[in-house]
């Protein structure tokens, strides 16, 4: 009996960081099924891959500084843009927010002690790690890294002699990891909500993680099988897609994008959730249009599954097909716009506190709007014929994936860091870094819109002299952005060791459940499972002040 007491004391008094379970030391982390520790495992591995991916991006930019050879040969360039894409997509943005913050905070936000399947959760991380190792192997093995682009288009991907197979298996296994996370989150949201937390009392980031999880479940198997088939085609010479064997390469593109377009919503939805979470806290206002934001996540997940062929307008498709996909593409913009309008409406008359998380969120809204609107442009058939396969596309997806999801990730990191580690980073430095990041990002990617519009093709090693001015500006942008990124990580790492200790439960004044538990959380999150009676984001005091002001 006394034994049991000490055990529960241990659980309730010390944070999950110090908690001693069955295993200690490093094994206590590698074998832990605590969702918070798994979240941190993901955070570390994702950050490492982000830095590797950024380094490749930086090198590409350096190469493009001058026409012709600058620092590498064309084949190396091909490999580097493939690695950059594969790492950023499959190892960073797709797992991204759900793997790190979803794991850490989803159970807490719904008042649960863990996810529904903790062991499966750990398995997902191991699959992620294996996928990452395979990706690294594909770089190191003889034969040379894959040079197909992250899209592995047929027929080149069955013809090239580079290490396409390990890269394909890496993507396959990472997909499996993503599926298991999705299964876990859907079940968790259905089964583990605290008493009283009905669907419309869930924080908005839970809604978006839920919608994302469905997309992960429903879309990922398609890419899994498609990439597996490419591997089988390469290994055994089975005729499936290769036109030499009667196959249809355009069919490959369809199957690829049936996943990969929904995948962009796997990337962006969780970031939108974080934005919806942070805005009310730093505007001290109830979120405007809670139900609209929640439902638009579901609408995005639904419509987003029906637009894939907008990546293939120039690949050969019937006119009817083109029209339908063009129309559907414009329809997806509506739920996204609904979110933006609701965020802006929440900010309106709020007392906005420009803390680092909020700065990143505002940048998210700005950059995501540019990325989203140019996306609508690309959905217009006539325009797309001009901009397809130009750096306009590269600018577009970096504005959404990096300017959107990337910045959303950083916002989440700045927002939840004190809760996760009980340490505070240097806020002043964080704000300065933010501005460098913002300026660097836009300097890096905006010129790509212009040169793409003028005809600069994408994935090209060389270019005509008239494009150089844009390339130079863009490369200068990377010289601002990359150091800013390293400074940001530096700030966090410094804070981990030397940062001011935070013991306060609620550093930012949030009203969701994670701010009502200890900082950092204890092993089981809640000593007593909370009973939820109110919707999140009430900010009653503030609303009262506002109302009296308005009455005057």
């Amino acid at each position: 009996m006394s034994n049991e007491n000490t055990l529960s004391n241990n659980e309730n008094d010390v944070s999950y960081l110090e908690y001693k379970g069955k295993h200690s030391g490093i094994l206590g982390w590698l074998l832990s099924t605590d969702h918070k520790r798994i979240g941190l495992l993901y955070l570390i591995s994702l950050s490492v891959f982000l830095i590797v991916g950024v380094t490749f991006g930086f090198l590409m930019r350096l190469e493009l500084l001058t026409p012709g050879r600058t620092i590498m040969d064309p084949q190396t360039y091909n490999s580097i843009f493939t690695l950059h894409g594969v790492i950023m997509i499959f190892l960073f943005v797709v797992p991204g927010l759900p793997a790190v913050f979803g794991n850490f905070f989803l159970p807490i936000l719904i008042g649960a002690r863990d996810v529904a399947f903790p062991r499966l959760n750990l398995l997902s991380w191991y699959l992620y790690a294996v996928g990452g190792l395979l990706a690294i192997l594909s770089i190191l093995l003889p034969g040379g890294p894959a040079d197909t682009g992250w899209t592995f288009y047929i027929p080149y991907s069955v013809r090239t002699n580079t290490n396409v197979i390990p890269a394909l298996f890496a993507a396959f296994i990472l997909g499996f990891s993503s599926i298991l996370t999705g299964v876990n989150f859907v079940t968790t949201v259905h089964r583990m909500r605290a008493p009283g937390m009905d669907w419309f009392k869930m924080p908005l980031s839970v809604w978006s993680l839920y919608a994302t999880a469905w997309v992960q479940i429903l879309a990922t198997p398609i890419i899994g099988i498609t990439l597996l088939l490419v591997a089988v085609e390469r290994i055994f010479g089975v005729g499936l897609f290769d036109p030499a064997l009667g196959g249809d390469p355009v069919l490959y593109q369809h199957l690829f994008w049936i996943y990969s377009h929904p995948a962009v919503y796997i990337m962006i939805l969780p970031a939108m959730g974080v934005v919806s979470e942070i805005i009310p806290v730093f505007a001290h206002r109830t979120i405007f249009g809670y139900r609209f934001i929640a439902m638009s996540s579901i609408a995005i997940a639904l419509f987003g599954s029906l637009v894939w062929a907008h990546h293939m307008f120039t690949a050969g498709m019937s006119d009817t097909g083109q029209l339908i996909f063009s129309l559907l593409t414009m329809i997806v913009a509506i739920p996204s716009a609904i979110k933006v309008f609701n965020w802006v409406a929440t900010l309106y008359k709020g007392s906005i506190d420009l803390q680092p998380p909020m700065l990143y969120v505002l940048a998210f809204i700005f950059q995501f709007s540019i990325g989203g609107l140019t996306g609508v442009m690309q959905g217009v058939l006539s325009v797309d014929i001009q901009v397809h396969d130009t750096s306009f596309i590269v600018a577009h997806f970096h504005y959404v994936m990096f300017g959107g999801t990337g910045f959303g990730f950083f916002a989440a990191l700045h927002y939840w860091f004190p809760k996760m580690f009980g340490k505070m980073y240097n806020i002043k430095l964080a704000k300065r870094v933010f501005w460098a990041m913002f300026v660097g990002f836009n300097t890096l990617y905006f010129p790509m819109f212009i040169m793409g519009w003028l005809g600069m093709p994408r994935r090209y090693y060389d270019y005509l002299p008239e494009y150089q001015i844009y390339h130079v500006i863009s490369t200068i942008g990377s010289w601002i952005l990359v150091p800013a990124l390293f400074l940001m990580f530096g700030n966090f790492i410094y804070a981990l060791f030397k940062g001011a200790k935070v013991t306060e439960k609620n550093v930012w004044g949030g009203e969701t459940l994670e701010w009502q538990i200890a900082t950092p959380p204890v092993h089981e999150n809640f000593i007593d499972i909370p009973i939820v009676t109110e919707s999140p984001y009430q900010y009653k005091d503030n609303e009262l002040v506002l109302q009296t002001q308005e009455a005057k």
Partner: protein
Amino acid sequence: MSIQHTAAAHIHRDDVASRMGMWLFLFTELLLFGGMFILYSVYRFTHPQDFHLAAKELNTVIGTFNTAILLTSSLTMALSIAAIQRRQKTLSIIFQLITILLAFGFMVNKYFEWGAKFHHGIYPGSDTLLSKPSGEILFFGLYYVMTGLHGLHVIIGVVIIAFMTVFTLRDVITHDNYVKLEAAGLYWHLVDIIWIFLFPLFYLIT
């Protein structure tokens, strides 16, 4: 409601959640095969004549026999769950073992079937196959990949059921805690259902 204390939370068990998780996973399996069914439909549509000729080369007798085997194994799997619910541990184990045996029977048939094809020179990359029209190359490509992946699922199913047998022996699976066996059963039925689609598509409609 205030909370019952932590010790209880460790033996957290939610059979509904487990079942739900399993169903979601099965959806993903269906979608995995769905991708290949799309390929099949498109290529059948673009090469109807070649598909017609190629399908004639498959052995309908073996196919039918294997269908019967798998259907029976689904029955024995269901019976093993029914048995454990009635606390008949030994009977449940016997049914699980029969299921495994039937699965082996299926694989042995598959082996002979594929072997015969190989013997006739019809296998991926073979000269005989490559000299055929492209629709037939695609048909046999899909045939090998789809039945191959299905076979892989059969093997995985055998491993899973074997684990269940051990669990039943060790009383991990009991009359009031059999959700694992149930999940294995669901998986096995899925393997069965996929075959139910593969069989007519490859063997029956010509």
